[in-house]
């Protein structure tokens, strides 16, 4: 309890990390819901990795251009903005290309996503092996070390995620309609390509911000596991979206508390906690279904 009081205190040294972690926890499941519904779970794995490749390229750019290394984290807003630009650009290019290929319906989607994932990981390692300074920042990201978050990083994360929340909330009807029944939406005059693109842009932006703030591991965890867990108990879209978001936000806070108390890395703690919640809820769901079946007999 003492640790909890410490974390909640306004002068807590790592308060920006707590806020960022909780923001990402709340926001990622909102787009994760659509990744699950559109059966794009593998995209949720590949995109954070592509995003971190974008970060690697961005962090390497100053070295390639002989401008010196761009500082990452709390010391450099330029470095952070550069990394955000790299992350967003790479994520959007990847998601739009993958979506285009998906629409053409040729080849094996899982194969494409698997290839993108492994090539992105390898490319990041190759890029950063030649850039020692940038490598340190990137490794922090990869491990989910979210202890050095500046006020600027926090504001940027909050603004970007608020934008995602507003657009997604405002146009939820259109995005859901196009996802559920594309043909009907088109016959009723909805611009299906536009709404698809809007959803992909939101996913891309969320992934970029999440990867930059908390790393690809936690981004992937929060994109998918809260949505999968909430889906077990949801009867309506409202329950699904709100349940997933609340679960993400709450777990990220609990994860931070647990990690801080036990001196563990925050990212992996969050993800393991999410996994444990999913497992418990899965078992509980099976028990409930079994119990209802017995009652009907």
């Amino acid at each position: 309890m003492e640790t909890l009081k410490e974390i909640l205190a306004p002068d807590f040294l790592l308060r920006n990390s707590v806020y960022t972690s909780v923001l990402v926890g709340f926001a990622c499941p909102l787009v994760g819901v659509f990744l699950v519904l559109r059966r794009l779970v593998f995209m949720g794995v590949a995109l954070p990795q592509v995003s971190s490749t974008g970060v690697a390229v961005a962090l390497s750019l100053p070295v390639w251009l002989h401008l010196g290394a761009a500082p990452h984290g709390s010391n450099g807003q330029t470095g952070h903005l550069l990394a955000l630009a790299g992350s967003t650009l790479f994520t959007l290019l990847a998601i739009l290309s993958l979506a285009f290929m998906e629409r053409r319906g040729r080849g094996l989607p899982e194969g494409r996503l698997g290839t993108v994932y492994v090539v992105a990981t390898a490319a990041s390692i190759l890029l950063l092996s030649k850039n020692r300074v940038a490598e340190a920042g990137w490794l922090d990201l990869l491990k989910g070390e979210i202890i050095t978050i500046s006020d600027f990083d926090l504001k940027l994360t909050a603004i970007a995620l608020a934008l995602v929340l507003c657009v997604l909330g405002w146009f939820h009807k259109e995005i859901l309609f196009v996802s559920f029944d594309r043909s009907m939406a088109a016959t009723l005059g909805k611009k299906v390509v536009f709404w698809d693109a809007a959803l992909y842009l939101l996913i891309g932006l969320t992934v970029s911000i999440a990867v930059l703030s908390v790393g690809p591991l936690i981004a992937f965890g929060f994109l998918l596991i809260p949505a999968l867990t909430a889906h077990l108990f949801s009867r309506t879209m409202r329950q699904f979206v709100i349940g997933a978001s609340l679960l993400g936000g709450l777990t990220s806070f609990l994860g931070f508390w647990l990690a801080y108390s036990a001196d563990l890395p925050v990212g992996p703690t969050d993800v393991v906690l999410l996994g444990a919640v999913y497992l418990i809820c899965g078992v509980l769901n099976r028990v409930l279904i079994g119990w209802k079946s017995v009652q009907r007999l």
Partner: protein
Amino acid sequence: MSEPLLTLDQLAIGYDGHVVLSGISLVISRGSFTALLGANGTGKSTLLKTILGLQPAVAGRIELHAAPGRALIFGYVPQATQFDPLYPLTGFDVALMGAYGRVGPGRWPGRGERDFVRDCLQATGAAGFADRKFSQLSGGQKQRVLIARALAARPDILVLDEPTAGVDVKATRVLLEFITQIHQERSLTVLLVTHDLPLVRKHAQRILWLHDGRALHGTVAELFTPERMAEIFEVEAG
């Protein structure tokens, strides 16, 4: 002759420039009941998608005769089996989508629209299970919800793509009786895609029969002759 609603003029359909079927000419009149018949792979779905504007025609043209100043509205009823059961939507949520065509981006259907959707669910006999999860409804129940959704669009023409696929015999009969009933009561134009000949004989007025790269068009009496049937099924008449 009754007022035309939709005209297909020397239409050629297909994918990526590859023609599946050509020379389709047909007038669908307002208030008519037309069945689109044909075996699997004859181009029924391609023709339907082309009529609905979901894919471009390879050649020819489609004329939509809507009222001045507005677009022709299709009440599209797809096969119930095509929907992903992952979506946590109730029957009402699905039916409400029919009203989305009249509601602009970023706005939600108001009370009037929601009441109208409830009326549509009532009319299709789906009100009793509209609050249940759509994915957990039976094939026949899903089709009723989907027809309610199509009616909620206030359509000029109801387009049904094999609505009895995955539906048991009894529910099929009830469903077709119901479609015929709303066609008659509301003078609603119906275009029904099916391969169920007895149902077509009983309910449809006109038929477009896709067979062997050709589109045969006529009334039930004209096409359901022993000679035509023998030609289509490649057996000797008699």
